């Protein structure tokens, strides 16, 4: 306390001290006073605990006061020291140190506070981040949709980094390269990692001026995020304009030029990229952001994987849902079908029972298992009888039984057999024709019986029978025939068909309708009934009011149309019929019967009588009468059917009667029409004045476009000139001229007759010409064909004759040659011959050998093939010949080109002969190429054009030789024709070849080819085996 007593600070010090004491006293006394007051005023009983509390307070206050005093003392000391130091007191140094220490302390305190503040801030941030991560993970756990999840990720990332703009791209395989990428193993291949194979899909976007559309695609190459894709690393760019990876002008909308792209991995695969930009603080992205985001994204990668899986599952679920729906639909459909089937079954059951066809099921042995009511009815059995058991085999006529059993076996064996006709027996023993369709009943896989239908053919057979009659009648009617003959034939047909005893036909003759033809009626009946006209006692015709003769009896009724279809014995078609004349006469009145009856039919014993009118249009021109002594011969159907026939007969008769005249005029007309193909009229200047239809058709123009125009308008100049000359000549001479003309339009030939058209008025001068033009193309063609055929015939006949001749000649030559030859040989053996003679004799023998060769060749042509013909591959045959020639071809430097068709049919040939033909052709080819620069022998085989009876194979032998002169062409196949030097060739090679090919039924011809050489074409028929045998037989004979 010594420091306080300083002379200079005495009064001031005292002051402070004083004040301090007062304060101390007040602090100490005031509570005491308060407590005391409270105690005395409030009548409080002071318990020890309260006293202790008070004492403690007072002690505390005392303590505080002491401390205060100490501090004050210290400060006072310092202050004194400071004062002393100003006076250079040594003690001050120590104090100065204290002060600076105090300053340091205060500074560091400041620092501490600052640091503390910073740490707190950082802590808050970390807490926030941690909170975000926690929230994100929690969210991620909940979110299953990728899109939602990505939204959350983006939101949190932005929140954590403070970015204001952000987007998330998913990495997807571009579907265009899907196959390529998916095919390659894993995703490791550098090839498949090309950005071009992938693309970014925008799944979330926030803060852009214009939001990126969700699910839109961004090419990886065009995005900054491609570096993330390529390097699989975080892309942190501080300055987009300076960074080596980007080097890109900054878009002001993104704020500062810094951005951050974060990869999101699932496993090792890059699944998505998060892009962040524009920090709200305007700062750049730093390592801190990178770190936090890495943790954050690492945390949620599992969720992402889940979400991806989920979306996959979702897709599958969707698929299976569709599938289920489909299945349900199918089930529904099947149910409907089943219902329909049940419905059908019901229907069929109904059909089975009510169909007017016999349906059956029988066992293998023929026992009836099921049958419908119609079957029982058809066969005359009751249902009970059927139920008791029947064997179907007994229902067939015995002669069919074997066939039936065989057919049953066939059906059981699964053979498809259509309806088969049989004759079956009813219960009453009557038989009827049927057609049966049957199929096997398969139980498991074993046929156990047959099921089918029986169709009663009785009616069909009948109608078939009727139809046959109609056909035959119509046939007869349409064959040109004498009238009488025709009617007779028809009567016979009808009689044969229905087995009626007597049939007659009445036809108009004058005013009456006598029988034209009858069959089966006794002569006296015909005589008595011949005429229908009623005559009075003077034998004059009785006529009605219109003057028509009165026709008696029922026949008269029919012919005059006096019928009444309300009566049972008349039909609507105007026929009369009865099965019992006796009953009819007894039960009806004269009035009903329309006319006076002669009753001759009934009295002659005819019970069944039918009278059917023969009509030609409306007119009745006669009638058909059917009489039989048996009753019940007719049915209404039969009568109606005959009415139909009656109409046909009527028409035919009418036609025949007028046919002759018609025929005549028709023939005339026809010949006229046919003769004028084209007719037209022109004036002197060849202007068309008229064309007929035939000619118009040739123009194929409407008449108006032809009339008034000139001939030269439609034809060439040359043609027009020729035409004009003809017209002029006709006009000049007045005489018709005929010219052949070949149409330039279609190359057809016409015979044109130019005739003067006489004008009645001006007879002295002809100004118009009629041209009639007739198409003679076919005629021409025919003529040409005929000429060709004649030529060919002549040619082959000539050759054949030559062949016969040459054989005879050869024989005749060879005998003397033989003698000369022997003479020569004997001469040669003589001794003492001069050497010249020996030489000359040798020459003689050589020349004789030439004669022999010629004779030999000559005969070959006419010889019939004696070798058996064999099937032979022509290609092999040609090869054989060429083989023989190979060395010669080489020596002569001939190139051989061979083109074989491999699948040729093999013809039957005499191989030796055929070889000779090829041999001859090849020899010729080689000879005629002698001295040529280009020597090519080309042999081709192939299929020829088939005709009606045979296929052909074709052999072509072509050379590049001198060819054949046109004038020689027709002669090359003739014997002794040669263009070789005398002695070099016999002129028989082609002649013999020709004969051989002809013997084989083939053809040979020659042509000059483009190379200037000759080409020979051979066509050989491929004869069938049977034909071949016949050919061979002939050959042997």
């Amino acid at each position: 306390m010594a420091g306080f007593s300083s002379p200079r600070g005495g009064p001031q010090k005292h002051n402070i001290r004083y004040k301090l004491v007062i304060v101390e006293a007040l602090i100490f006394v005031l509570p005491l006073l308060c407590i005391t007051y409270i105690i005395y005023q409030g009548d409080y009983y002071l318990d020890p605990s309260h006293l202790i509390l008070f004492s403690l307070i007072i002690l505390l206050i005392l303590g505080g006061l002491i401390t205060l005093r100490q501090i004050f003392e210290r400060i006072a000391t310092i202050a004194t020291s400071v004062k002393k130091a100003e006076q250079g007191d040594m003690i001050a140094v120590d104090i100065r140190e204290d002060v600076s220490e105090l300053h340091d302390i205060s500074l560091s305190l400041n620092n501490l506070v600052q640091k503390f503040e910073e740490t707190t801030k950082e802590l808050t941030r970390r807490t926030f981040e941690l909170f975000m991560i926690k929230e994100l993970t929690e969210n991620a756990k909940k979110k299953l949709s990728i899109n939602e999840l990505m939204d959350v990720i983006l939101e949190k990332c932005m929140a954590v980094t403070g970015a204001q703009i952000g987007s998330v791209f998913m990495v997807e395989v571009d579907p265009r390269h899907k196959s390529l990428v998916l095919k390659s193993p894993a995703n490791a291949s550098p090839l498949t990692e090309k950005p071009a194979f992938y693309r970014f899909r925008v799944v979330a976007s926030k803060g852009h001026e214009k939001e990126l559309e969700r699910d839109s695609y961004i090419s990886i190459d065009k995005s900054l995020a491609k570096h993330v894709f390529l390097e699989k690393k975080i892309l942190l760019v501080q300055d987009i304009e300076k960074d080596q990876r980007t080097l890109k002008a900054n878009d002001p909308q993104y704020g500062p030029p810094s951005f951050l792209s974060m990869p999101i991995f699932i496993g090792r695969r890059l699944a998505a990229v998060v892009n962040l930009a524009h920090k709200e603080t305007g700062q750049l992205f730093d390592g801190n952001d990178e770190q936090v985001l890495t943790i954050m994204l690492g945390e949620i990668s599992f969720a992402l994987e889940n979400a991806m899986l989920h979306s996959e599952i979702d897709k599958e679920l969707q698929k299976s849902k569709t599938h289920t729906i489909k299945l349900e639909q199918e089930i529904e459909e099947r149910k409907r079908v089943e219902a329909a089937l049940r419905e059908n079954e019901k229907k069929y059951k109904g059909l089975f029972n009510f169909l007017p066809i016999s349906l059956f099921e029988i066992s293998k042995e023929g026992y009836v298992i099921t049958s419908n009511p119609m079957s029982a009815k058809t066969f005359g059995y009751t249902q009970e009888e059927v139920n008791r058991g029947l064997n179907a085999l007994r229902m067939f006529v015995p002669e069919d039984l074997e066939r039936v059993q065989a057919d049953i076996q066939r059906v059981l064996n699964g053979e498809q057999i259509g309806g088969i006709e049989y004759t079956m027996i009813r219960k009453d023993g009557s038989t009827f024709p049927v057609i049966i369709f049957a199929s096997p009943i398969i139980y498991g896989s074993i046929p156990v019986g047959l099921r089918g239908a029986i169709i009663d053919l009785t009616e069909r057979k009948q109608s078939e029978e009727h139809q046959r009659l109609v056909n035959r009648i119509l046939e007869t009617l349409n064959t040109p025939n004498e009238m009488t003959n025709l009617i007779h034939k028809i009567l016979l047909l009808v009689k044969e068909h229905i087995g009626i005893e007597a049939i007659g036909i009445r036809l108009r003759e004058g005013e009456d309708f006598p029988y034209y033809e009858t069959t089966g009626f006794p002569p006296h009946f015909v005589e008595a009934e011949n005429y229908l006209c009623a005559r009075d006692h003077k034998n004059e015709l009785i006529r009605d009011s219109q003057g028509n003769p009165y026709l008696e009896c029922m026949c008269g009724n029919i012919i005059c149309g006096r019928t009444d279809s309300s009566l049972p014995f008349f039909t609507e078609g105007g026929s009369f019929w009865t099965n019992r004349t006796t009953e009819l006469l007894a039960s009806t009145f004269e009035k009903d019967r329309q006319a006076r009856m002669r009753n001759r039919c009934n009295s002659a014993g005819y019970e069944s009588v039918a009278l059917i009118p023969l009509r030609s249009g409306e007119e009745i021109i006669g009638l058909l009468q059917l009489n039989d002594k048996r009753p019940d011969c007719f049915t209404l159907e039969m009568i109606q059917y005959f009415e139909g026939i009656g109409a046909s007969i009527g028409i035919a008769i009418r036609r025949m009667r007028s046919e002759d005249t018609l025929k005549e005029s028709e023939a005339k007309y026809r010949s006229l029409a046919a003769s004028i193909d084209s007719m037209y009229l022109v004036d002197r200047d060849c202007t068309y004045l008229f064309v007929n239809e035939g000619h118009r058709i040739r123009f194929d123009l409407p008449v108006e476009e032809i009339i008034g125009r000139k001939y030269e308008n439609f034809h060439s100049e040359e043609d027009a000139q020729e035409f004009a000359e003809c017209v002029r000549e006709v006009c000049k001479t007045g005489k018709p001229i005929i010219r052949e003309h070949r149409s330039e339009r279609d190359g057809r030939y016409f015979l044109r007759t130019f005739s003067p058209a006489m004008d009645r008025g001006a007879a002295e001068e002809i100004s118009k010409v009629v041209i009639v033009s007739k198409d003679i193309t076919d005629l021409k063609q025919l003529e040409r064909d005929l000429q060709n055929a004649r030529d060919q015939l002549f040619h082959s006949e000539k050759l054949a004759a030559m062949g016969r001749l040459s054989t005879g000649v050869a024989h005749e030559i060879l005998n003397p040659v033989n003698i000369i030859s022997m003479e020569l040989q004997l001469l040669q053996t003589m001794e003492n011959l001069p050497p010249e003679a020996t030489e000359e004799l040798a020459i003689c023998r050589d020349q004789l050998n030439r004669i022999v060769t010629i004779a030999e060749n000559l005969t070959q042509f006419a010889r019939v093939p004696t070798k058996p013909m064999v099937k032979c591959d022509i290609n092999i045959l040609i090869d054989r010949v060429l083989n023989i020639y190979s060395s010669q071809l080489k020596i002569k430097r001939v190139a051989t080109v061979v083109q074989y068709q491999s699948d040729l049919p093999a013809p039957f040939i005499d191989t030796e002969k055929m070889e000779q033909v090829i041999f001859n052709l090849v020899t010729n080819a080689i000879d005629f190429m002698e001295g040529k620069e280009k020597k090519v022998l080309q042999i081709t085989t192939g299929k020829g054009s088939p005709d009606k009876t045979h296929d052909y194979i074709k052999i072509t032998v072509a050379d590049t030789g001198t060819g054949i002169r046109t004038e020689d062409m027709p002669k090359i196949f003739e014997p002794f024709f040669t263009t070789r030097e005398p002695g070099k060739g016999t002129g028989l090679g082609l002649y013999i070849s020709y004969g051989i090919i002809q013997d084989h039924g083939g053809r040979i011809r020659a042509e000059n080819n483009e190379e200037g050489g000759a080409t020979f074409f051979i066509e050989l028929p491929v004869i069938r085996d049977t034909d071949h045998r016949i050919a061979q037989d002939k050959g042997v004979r």
Partner: protein
Amino acid sequence: MMERILIVDDEIHTVRLLQRFLTSKGYEVHTATDGREAIQKVTEVKPHVVLLDIIMPGMDGLDTLKEIKKIDSHAAIIMITAVIDEDMAKKAMQLGAFDYVTKPFDLDYVETCVLVKIIQVLGSDN
């Protein structure tokens, strides 16, 4: 014993020349100009070899061949035929002819042919 040869041909010069040739070769040669005469000669002289022309008027070579075979089955018959009628010669071989020579003759060949047969015949006699 000289080997006997009968020559049958309707061509008189052929017969004459063959006779001259074969005689010069040392054979006993008989001739005939038709089938009947040939058969008669065969009976008479029993030739070892018969040279028989196929185409002859009247009885032809094939018929003659059959007759000769009936009379003397040992006689060797060599048919004479034109070059163009080889088929007939082959037929004759089937009927029992020993061989055939073709006109025009190569006389050396004819002799060889005859000789071969003679050697055979004589060989079998021994």
